[in-house]
Structures are given as C-alpha cells and as structure tokens.
C-alpha cells in the first residue's frame, strides 16, 4: 500500500511538469496583445508594456521563461498578477470558497443521488422507479446555466425567498448554488447507483445473506450497498475535482467569489501568471482526488489490493 501510494505520488511529477508547461505555453500564446484592455479602451504606453514584459520575462525564449516560472513555483512563489497582487494570496482566498461550494454540491449529489438510486433500484419498474428515471432525464437534459438562471429568477427575484446572489460565502448561502451545481451529477449518480443496485440485487452473495436470515436492512445497507457503490465513488471523486475547477458558470450566476470566477476573469484579462497558478493547483487537486478514489476502492472491496 505504502509503495503504491509512493509510486502514484512520483507519477504526479511528470504529469505536473507536463500540464504546467502546456498551460504556460498556451496562456501566453493566445493571439492578441496580453496587455490589451489593461489601460482601458486605449493602447498601453510603450514604457508600461516594456515594464510588464520584463516582469513576466516575456522577452526571454519560451523555455527560459518557463524554467524561471517553474523555479519560482517550486519555491512556493506563484508570482504576481499584473495588478501587483500575490497569485498565492488570491488562490488562498478563493480556494476555500470553492471548496465549500464543491462540498455542499457533493453532499447534495451523494445524499439525494444515492438515495434515489437505491430506492428506484430496489423497486424495479415501480412508480418511484419511473419517477426517478423521468426526473433524472429531465435534469440531464438541462444545462447548468439554465438551471442557475431559472432558480435565480424564480426563487431570488419572483418569490424573493433567497438573495439572488451570494452576499457572503457561508455554507448556508451556498446551499442554493450547491444544488444548482450538483443537479446534473445528482442525476447521473442516481442512475449509476440504480443500475448497480438492480444488477447486484440478484448476485449470489445477496441471496446467501438473505438465506442466512439477515434482516433486509442489513443486506441492503451493508452487503448490497458496499459492493454497488464502487462505480459511484469513482464518479463522485472525479466530480469533486470537476466541481473545484468547473464551477465557473454557477459561480458567475450567483456571484460566488471562488476559483471558477478567478480563472474566468484571469483568462479574459490574459493574466497569465494567475491562470497558470490556479490551473496548476487544480491539476494537483485532481490528481490527489483520483489517488484518494483508488485507495477507497481497496477499503470498499477487499478483493482489490495494491501490492
């Protein structure tokens, strides 16, 4: 187990180098002047552009630029944005917000999705099963930005139950955006666990457990669920990674000051240092999440071993 983890961690090094390099190259290779729009609607004066090019080492060859960036990064220095702010500070300020949002979404997704999946999986072809199937189909076919705007319009503006945007990112305030963010994945989780449950329901070990005279609750809760959740866990794990990086739309609609908005704005304003920094962190998070998921397999299913 320990060796496996170590090997996986070592594998992250080339992945980390490759992704940061690609992102770095792409960010500065976007056509157009990287300092466009920094000076309002007029072109920036030459001395400003020179000073900025110097700050971001843009006059060096690409590989040298990247090496300098990486050198600083390894020492924990993410660099400065064009507005003179520490990239690391911005990541530290926005990451917890997005993490909160992602966790809310994950809880929503897991609790509702798995419950719906189990209920409908156990009652094949009943009314509840059809209800789950139809409602998840409905959720899957609506893009998140539509759900977001509709929720904002109906509950925020017409009914006035919620504030249309998040005023301060507390868990309570993030519940509605969390629901919106989770809506699509929730439907997938429900369908995944439904399929898994209804398949495993007829498995030999379930029959054995029932024959032993175990109560239904224990059969479903321990034997059936534990074996059926492996694909769901994979999905949830990668989804948490996706939530952390992909909440751009939801964060934009509800004005959540998180990582998604930060990345989006930095891409628009061509803030290369910021984009590379944030995406690097996201890549690391994603890698760690997949590792965690893989380790969870072994916990759920003792047949899976890593040595």
């Amino acid at each position, binding site marked *: 187990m320990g060796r496996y983890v170590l090997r996986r961690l070592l594998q992250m090094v080339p992945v980390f180098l490759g992704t940061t390099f690609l992102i770095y190259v792409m960010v500065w290779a976007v056509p157009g002047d990287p300092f466009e729009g*920094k000076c309002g609607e007029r072109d920036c004066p030459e001395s400003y*552009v020179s000073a900025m*090019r110097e700050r971001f080492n843009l006059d060096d060859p690409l590989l040298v630029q990247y090496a300098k960036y990486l050198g600083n990064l390894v020492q924990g220095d993410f660099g400065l944005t064009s507005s003179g702010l520490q990239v690391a500070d911005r990541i530290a300020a926005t990451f917890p917000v997005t993490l909160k949002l992602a966790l809310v979404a994950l809880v929503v997704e897991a609790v509702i999705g798995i419950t719906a999946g189990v209920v409908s999986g156990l009652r094949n072809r009943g009314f509840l099963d059809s209800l789950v199937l139809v409602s998840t189909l409905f959720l899957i076919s609506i893009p998140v930005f539509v759900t977001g705007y509709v929720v904002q319009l109906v509950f925020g503006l017409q009914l006035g139950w919620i504030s249309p945007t998040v005023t301060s990112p507390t868990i309570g305030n993030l519940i509605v955006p969390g629901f919106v963010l989770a809506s699509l994945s929730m439907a997938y989780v429900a369908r995944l666990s439904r399929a898994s449950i209804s398949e495993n329901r007829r498995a030999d070990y379930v029959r054995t457990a029932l024959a032993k005279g175990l109560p239904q609750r224990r059969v479903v809760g321990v034997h059936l669920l534990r074996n059926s959740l492996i694909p769901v866990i994979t999905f949830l794990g990668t989804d948490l990674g996706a939530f952390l990086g992909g909440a751009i739309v939801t964060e934009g609609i509800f004005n959540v000051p998180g990582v998604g908005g930060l990345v989006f704005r930095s891409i628009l304003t061509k803030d290369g240092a910021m984009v590379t920094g944030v995406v690097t962190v996201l890549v690391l998070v994603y890698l760690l999440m997949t590792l965690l998921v893989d380790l969870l397999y072994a916990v759920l299913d003792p047949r899976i071993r890593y040595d």
Partner: protein
Amino acid sequence: MSRARLVPAAVAVAVVAAGCGGAEEAPAGSNTDAAITIFNTEPENPLVPGNTTEVGGSRVLDPLFTGLVEYRAEDAQPVNAMAESIETTDSKVFTVKIKQGWTFHDGTPVTAKSFVDAWNWTAYGPNGTQGASFFSQIEGYDEVHPKDPDGADGPQEAPTPTVQEMSGLKVDGDHQFTITLSEPFSVFPVTIGYEVFAPLPEAFFKDRKAFEDSPIGNGPFKFVSRAVGTDIKLTRYDDYKGDDKPKFKDLTLKVYQSRESAYADLVANNLDFIEELPPNALAGKKYETDLGDRVVQRETLNMQTIAMPFYLPPYDNVDLRRAISMAINREEITQRIFEGTRKPADGWVHPLMKGYQPGQCGDYCAFNPEKAKESFAKSGYTGEILLLSNTDGGHQEWAEAVANSIKNTLGVEARFVPSTSFGEFRQKVNAHEMTGMYRAGWIADYPSIENWLTPLYRTGASSNDGLYSNPAFDAKLAEADKAPGEEEAIGLYLEAERIMAPDMPTIPLWTQFTIGGKSDRLKVANLDPFRALDLETVEVA
C-alpha cells in the same frame, strides 16, 4: 416582491459605526449617514492614480482623489477644484495657484509639491506607468521618458533617463507652480481633470507598497478596506474642503463576476447602482418592466464610427467614402436595432462638447439614396465592400444592418466580416492589416473638442490608425493649439473639422446613451458623461 437583505444590515452597521458623528445640513428626508453599494469590476492595476486608466480602478480612485480641475457632471466642463486659478497668456506657460488648507486623508497638507512630485513620478519612464503619455506635452518629458529604440516588443531597452524631473514643472512656493509646455496647447487646462494628474502624498514616495494596499488621497472619500475579488470600502472624508461633498457616508464598490448577476441584485434592491445594464436586460427593453422608474439614462461621451483604411484601395477613394456614408440609414438603424438608445451623429465632435456645432458633416452624414448612388457611380468602383468588426461587444447586429443598408442602397455586394476578440481585432488595426473598412469607437479622454479631432485625424497621431492625412487640416489644428484663449481655439477647431468633412476620413454613425439603474433607496442618482455614478448628487432616502 423582493427582500433587500444585505443593504439594511450594512446600514445598521454604518449607523453603529458612525457613533456620535453629527450630520450637517441634512437635505430634507435624506439619510446622510447611509451606506450604499455600487457595481464595480476588479481593478486590474495597483491603485495609484498615475498607473490606472482602466475603468475598474478608476471608479475607486475617482472618489479618493480631487485634481486641479474636475469635470462638471451636467455638461462635462472643467471647473476649478483644487486649483484657485490657472492662468496663461500664451498657452505655453501656465501658472497654477492651488487652494490652501486642503489635506490628504493622512492629515498632511496638499501643496504644489504634491502635484509636481506626482506628475514627475508618473512621467518617469522606468516606472512604466499607464498614464505617462498624458504628460507628453510638458517640457522635458522626452528626457525623463526616452523612447524605446525598437518598440516595446524589441530586445533593446529604453535608455535610462539622465534626469528624474521634467524641466517644465517648477514649484514656486507651497501653493503655486508653473507648467511650461514644449509647444503651446490651448486646451491643456482641460486635460488635467483626468485622474492621472492627481496629487500624491509624501507617504506614497516613502512606501509605495503600503500606499497601493491602502491609498491615501485628497478626495471626498477615504479608503477603508479592500477584500480583493469581493469589494472595496470607502467612507466620507469629513475634513474635505471641496464643494462636491457627498450626501451619504459609506460607499462600497462591490466586485461582480458578471453584469448579469449584478443586474439580478439590482432588481432585488440588493445593489444600489449599476452604471450600465447587461445585454440581457437591454434586449427587448426588459429593464423597463424590471426596473420601472429606477432606470437611469444619460447621453455619454462615446461615439461609434466606421474607420477607413487609407492604405487599402478602394477605401482611399473619396467618392466611395461619401457614397457609403450617404447609403447608411442611421435613423432607422438606431431606432430598430438600438431602440433609440443611440443618436445619429452629424459630425465628428460629440454633441456634449463645449463648442459643438450641429451639422458639421453636412449632407454626407444624411441618408440620401439618390446622391449616394450618384457618388458611387462617380467613384468608378463596383467590387465588394467589407465591414470588419469584433463581435464580442455586441456589434454584430448593427454591423450587419449597416452592411445591408449599403447593399440595398448602392446595389453592390456589402458584407460584414466578424472577428472574434477585441484584442485580436485591435492588433490588426494597429498593424494596418485591415482588409476592409472597420468599426471604430472613441471615448473622450478629456472633454474637449480637440480630443475628438487631433488624436484621431491628425497626420501620424496616436489613434489615427487609418492613416488619414490632410496638410490643410493639420495646419489648422496647429493654429488652434496655439490660440491664446479657449473661445478662439474652439472656433479654429471647428474650422478644422469643416476642412476635414469633405474627405470623410471616417464615417460618423451615432453617439450613445448609457442606461443604468438604481435601487429604491436612492432618491437621486445621476450618471455623469463619463459613464460613472455622479457621487455628489446621490441622495439616500
């Protein structure tokens, strides 16, 4: 229908925080200790006036600083603010007297030196500020800001200046200084209302980093706190000596990820002001039903034109340019596409400018199919006409309409060619690589008739990217620059505009109304001509 959650809480905090601070001359029924929240975008540069020309930063710095002159919100005219008087006899040497008793927010006095030091710092080349070029008319600018021999992208660096101060600025005592320009420039006093000309306190020169984190100005508001990416809080500076004292206490500039989410907050009265509504609210005039009498509208200082690439035939053909201009039905397009939020232009100078004269463009800017066809026949051109524009700013609809108008009137193939991003589009414009005529917009740097002519049409001027050149026009501009007084200058600039008109160097299309919105709480909130909230007029119920 909706609840305003944030706002009452903020008011409560403000009232508690205000403690025993007494309100003075309260307008009847207004809450002079109120707190308001307005829309902002994240500042893209450090908060130093000389280094911020972009709107998100300007909106923060504008209330923090008061310059020598400020622009009046009604008509954009400069009025003395910190300046007691600005005098000149030859439009080359200006004597500036500043008012006494003003202080920065840290209590230090504002003196002539505060201005001169700030200007020298901003103009100094190695500081790489955004506002440096605004000082280029001052004598000695070339010495402190030497040109980069091979442009900003080249490997060579600009030589380090030998002097740090412009020879054209001289402090003559605590409250007086003189400005000497390298060439006479009659509208110079108008230009200095721009924020980059703001004074800076001693504290800035001692510790720039600390200043950027917590700017110290001399304006009606002082800095309280900043949560990067979330908001910036300002509060009224009670020792402010200017006339534009605010009638409320706390100002929060809230950063929004998108105008759309800000609009939702505005409709729900969670946000007090947004100066420009998002496209989804403007479409089909949705804002009228959402906001009712909370809509704030104002003609602002921007103009849309079609620029002509003089380096590319057939667009260097004057008859063709006239034909195209007369073939565009401005009235119909402004009504149908913009639903009246644009006003057809009849010249190159914005109607809000002092000295504006209507109809300077004459017949060439009026829709006239007969004359358009006549002129088109005279041009001898029969090929395709291309109109280029970026589409990320909502330009596609009108550009297509203009192309169709030309096509239908002249009976020639006219096509709109989209370009995806503004950055890419501007790069081609600057590199003179346009393949057809193209969209151009101009927002005044400073409210003077000169700013609508010189930077755009003078030979070799900074924003003359179509490469138009007319010696008679240049000569008239030079004459106007040297005029001893404002009235004479305006007359000469108007003459210059008339000289240029038959050439149609660009095709004026329309000027713009900006549509914003306010919350129920604000009794009065007006836009100024620069598309910002006029804080002086704000009254909270």
